[in-house]
């Protein structure tokens, strides 16, 4: 039956989330509506199953990796994410507005900066969260994306080629800085942003 959205989310909370993520008031209430409609257990948090119930996400080859991005603590099955955590992760996909670029440089970097967007993508590759993408990890992610349609050898050579091109310090894995370097020309701001109405 939809949700009693604005009645359960207090104004102070909305202000805090606004400051932390940069979303507008109406965006926050709408996303809260969405959050509660996904929360089948009605306990104010989302579990991995709640995400997997979205068919369009379940058929995304990297669906599980994306769901993982919402649970930063551990790989424990029992993880739950509350609305703050939910918004914090979604904030990475806010478009970068021009006036934000001129903001106070001593303030901490906004969640939707170019670097943070790249960090989101980097973490999708970095399965064990050791801040390096190893050949093995790259292979596993590639396997998720292509399914059964490409053989191990071909996938292996793709992985080798990619690491060769990106690796600069010769440790046979890709660090975050090397990752940034490889993608320096890509229009990250546009491709990793979602256009909000209102």
């Amino acid at each position: 039956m939809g949700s009693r959205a604005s009645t359960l989310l207090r104004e102070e909370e909305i202000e805090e989330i606004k400051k932390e993520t940069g979303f507008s008031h109406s965006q926050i209430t709408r996303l809260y509506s969405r959050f509660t409609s996904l929360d089948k257990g009605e306990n104010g948090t989302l579990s991995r199953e709640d995400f997997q119930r979205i068919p369009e996400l379940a058929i995304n080859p990297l669906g599980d990796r994306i769901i993982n991005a919402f649970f930063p603590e551990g790989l424990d099955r029992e993880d739950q994410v509350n609305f703050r955590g939910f918004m914090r992760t979604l904030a990475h996909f806010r478009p970068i507005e021009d006036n934000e670029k001129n903001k106070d440089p001593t303030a901490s970097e906004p969640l939707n900066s170019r670097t943070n967007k790249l960090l989101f993508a980097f973490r999708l590759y970095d399965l064990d969260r050791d801040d390096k993408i190893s050949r093995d990890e790259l292979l596993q992610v590639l396997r998720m994306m292509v399914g059964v349609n490409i053989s191990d050898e071909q996938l292996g050579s793709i992985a080798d080629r990619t690491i060769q091109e990106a690796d600069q310090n010769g440790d046979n894995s890709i660090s975050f800085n090397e990752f940034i370097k490889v993608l320096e020309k890509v229009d990250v701001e546009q491709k990793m942003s979602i256009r909000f109405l209102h």
Partner: protein
Amino acid sequence: MVLFLDFNPFDNLLCILLGISFTVWFTLLLVFIIVPAIFGVSFGIRQLYMKTLLKIFEWATRRIERGAKDKNHPLHKPYSNAIIAKEPTSLEEEIKEIRRSGSNRDLDSASEFEMSDIFYFCRRGVESIMDDEVTKRFSAEELESWNLLTRSNYNFQHISLRLTVLWGLGVVIRYGFLLPLRVTLAFTGVGLLVVLTSIIGFLPNGRTKNFLSEKVHLMCYRICVRALTAIITYHDSENKPKNGGICVANHTSPIDVIILASDGCYAMVGQIHGGLMGVIQKSMVKACPHIWFERSEVKDRHLVAKRLSDHVEDKTKLPILIFPEGTCINNTSVMMFKKGSFEIGSTVYPVAIKYDPRFGDAFWNSSQFGMVSYLLRMMSSWAIVCSVWYLPPMSREEGEDAVQFANRVKAAIARQGGLVDLLWDGGLKRGKVKDTFKEEQQKLYSKMLRPTWGPQNGHSSAP
């Protein structure tokens, strides 16, 4: 002893008063509701009722908006408009675009894999978390205007005394007057159905029996329609389903059956239930042949198909009524039609049903409400207003298989009813999505990696 003598005259008076009011009540009921139902005429009371209600709702909505502006309180607007704008580009286009922007190489020297490819899946995934086409179809639609029912309003705070009084009055009218009236009617309608169809069951098969059975069914359904205060507009009645055909319609609630069956006679299809439903089903089938399945038979697709095709071949039997979505959807979209009824090969008569949500949401969210609480909610709403369109009959064309035919019919129904046409299966309400869809995505992406080697399975194809 003395005390008893004192109370006696009061008791008598009370009894007389009660007796009179009951008689008056039942006479009014009979004259204004049951008799017209029997003859299929209408006094136009319901239309007047509907117009009055609409005016009141508009006033209430404007009052709320004004109240919210005065207090500087941002109004919670329902997301009947989407939260985000999705790009309609395909996997291939978008990944090519990402690569183009990042690469200084010539695109034709096909790069196999770029680390930036992941951006596409990332964004699509997060977009679907914010807003997807499927999960919102299984919960009630949110409305812009307020119809004086707290169940459908999210801005309900004390705005003005007048509004609250109006709402209170609404509650009294709905629960104190309308609900008992409707429950009485419902019991009358169902009771008459069971009793009369059982009686007709004793007649020998023939034209008299069919004629009487039709009349009885129509009458009882019309009483039920009035029990829900359903205000229905039928369009294009010249296309009404004929014997030997199959009538398909989009499914929003069990009330759909009552709405369609009060305007024409159908053979129902369904599973036999226990309890009251079972009693109704068993007596209905005595008067005319409906198709009821035992629970075990439902799984056997061949048995189901055989019984359906046997029925349609007999031209004396009524058209079958089927809801191919297989589950209730919230009336904003039409989901995948199961192909079973489209394989049988008879003429299909599509029907589109669209409810007007301003008066009361008819969607049955079976995971939230059981049947009885759902019916009580329906009977305590203001009214159920809907439009029914009878679309021209369709048959399977040459070279078209059952699935394509089903999709064609679905598109016609969606177009007429102003609903979104979705390919997703209504079964996703409860079940998981099939892996084949993910495999399709993976296949599409693999094609982008392979131009240097050519496809795995041997035959050549352009990338």
